[in-house]
């Protein structure tokens, strides 16, 4: 297992270097001179310009600039936001819990509902239930989620007035963040109604972000389950006289879930891409909205740092999924 882990880690190194080059290059390619951007509308003298160029190291050769950048990154210095003047890493760490909270809720919803529905559809293959569920899953898979979010807002926030339109919690409540996760913090605060408010803010974004993963997981579970149900050992289990619940739940599901685990892991990239749209629609203060805002404000330091951090998160999660896959499926390790 250790060798498996080390070989996977070794594969990540060149990818990480590539990712850092991309993040580094992007900023040099963004239109507009970052130093003139710093100066704002007042402009600056030629001497001051050269001075600042030296401060930021823009007068050195690109390779040297890159190496300095890499050194800074590896020591945890990702630069400072041009707009807020705060370190990029601090901003990321403040906003990331909001995205994690939303993503975890979305993937939980998608997994629980998706696996259940997928198993039921496979067991009743060809029935109206199967056809209906797979039809709905394909619609979900084809959904433009930014539109889906707007529709839910029209229905639940506009017409029914059940849920709030945006944000993470009502302005009535204030408490210092402890974990950064609003559901937990609101409980810890002990304020009546705070948890309900946080929950009601979370419902619609969770549904929107969870829709596509849900559809993918349901489809994948169904096809994996169908494959397993045709295997000999399932027939043997049935022949031994085991009840259908035991056959499906114990024998088939365990093996069918192996490819599903990979699918769930692959949804992390989908979730983070979806978070860009979902957070924008619901004004959810996470890293997706942060990146979009920074692109529009041309906050190149944030775009650069954010790209690197988000890619790093995805690479780490993919590594974890690989390891998990090696654990549930020992054949892979060899």
């Amino acid at each position, binding site marked *: 297992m250790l060798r498996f882990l080390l070989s996977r880690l070794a594969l990540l190194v060149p990818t990480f270097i590539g990712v850092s080059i991309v993040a580094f290059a992007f900023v040099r390619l963004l239109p507009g001179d970052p130093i003139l951007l710093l100066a704002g509308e007042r402009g600056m003298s030629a001497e001051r310009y050269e001075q600042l160029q030296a401060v930021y190291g823009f007068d050195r050769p690109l390779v040297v600039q890159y190496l300095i950048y890499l050194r800074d990154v590896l020591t945890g210095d990702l630069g400072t936001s041009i707009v807020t003047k705060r370190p990029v890493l601090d901003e990321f760490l403040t906003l990331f819990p909001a995205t994690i909270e939303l993503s975890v809720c979305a993937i939980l919803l998608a997994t629980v509902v998706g696996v259940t529905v997928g198993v039921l559809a496979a067991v009743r293959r060809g029935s109206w239930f199967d056809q209906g569920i797979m039809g709905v899953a394909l619609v979900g898979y084809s959904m433009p989620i930014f539109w889906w979010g*707007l*529709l839910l807002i*029209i229905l639940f926030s506009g017409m029914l007035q059940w849920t709030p339109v945006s944000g993470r919690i009502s302005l009535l409540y204030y408490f210092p963040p402890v974990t950064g996760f609003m559901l937990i913090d609101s409980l810890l605060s002990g304020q009546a109604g705070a948890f309900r408010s946080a929950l009601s803010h979370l419902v619609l974004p969770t549904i929107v972000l969870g829709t596509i993963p849900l559809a993918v997981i349901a489809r994948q579970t169904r096809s994996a389950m169908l494959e397993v149900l045709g295997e000999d050992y399932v027939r043997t289990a049935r022949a031994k006289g085991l009840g259908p619940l035991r056959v499906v739940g114990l024998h088939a599901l365990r093996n069918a879930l192996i490819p599903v685990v990979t699918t769930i892991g692959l949804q992390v990239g*989908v979730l983070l891409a979806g978070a860009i749209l979902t957070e924008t629609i619901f004004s959810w203060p996470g890293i997706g909205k942060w990146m979009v805002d920074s692109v529009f404000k041309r906050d190149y330091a944030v*775009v650069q740092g954010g790209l690197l951090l*988000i890619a790093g998160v995805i690479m780490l999660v993919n590594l974890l999924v690989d390891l998990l896959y090696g654990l549930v499926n020992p054949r892979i390790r060899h």
Partner: protein
Amino acid sequence: MAQEGAASDSQFRAPVDAWAMRRAMLAEFWFYFCQNRGAVIGLFVFLAIITVAVFAPLLAPHSPILQNRDALLLPPFWEEGGSLAYPLGTDAVGRDMLSRLIYGARFSLFIGMVVVTLSVTSGVLLGLAAGYFRGWLDVAIVRLMDVILAFPSLLLALVLVAIIGPGLINAMIAIALVYQPHFVRLTRGSVMAERGREYVTASRVAGAGRLRLMFLTILPNCLAPLIVQATLAFSSAILDAAALGFLGMGAQPPTPEWGTMLAEAREFILRAWWVVTFPGLAILITVLAINLMGDGLRDALDPKMKRG
């Protein structure tokens, strides 16, 4: 009996009729495609959308960018205050929704076609080179693709568009670039599997050159999964281009692109449901039709699915 023997004998002697074989393969493909009812429905909807896009100037009752100050935010005809002159209502500056939706079909299909063409061409070329030559070229290409895949596709496309400038063409280039790794991986995998097969060796022994081996011997046998992936890329490209348009980085107003229309409609969501509902519905129907077709294609092209 004697006649039958003669017929099969002449069949063996006659040169293989390439056209007849192709027709037989197409017929078989069509048979399996039609087994999937959803795929056939998807195909017909898709053909309908193509028709609408081609004949947009004839079908649209108004110009898609003509503003009418006397008809701002008019509801669809079945609601109170709506009129048949604007069957699906008007937007905030009095443009006819139906006409904009009809013209929007052109943009979505165009986006899908351009993105698929760009990403398939470049992806297949890179994948073919990587899988055929192996060695350092393979390592370099695979690593490069890993880097692209390490970013969420929409985020990478968003930042790319920010660099090269917002607009429909740039959005398509960015999306094609982030889709390309899927085609590289798929082609590379199939090429590596096919390269060692006997027919390739036979062809090489017969004196086929490198390019002939790559493009005429190996590539045609790798096409099935590529076609399925291309269908998926077509629908994803429409979704992602609409998402970029929605974020303000895709097609720019007043272009009647569906995602851009949604972005313009956002502020009216609680006042005028139709400006939000219809463009999204158009995206959903188009993408759904293509995905239905994709499922059917996968079933028809995957030998594992063929039973009986």
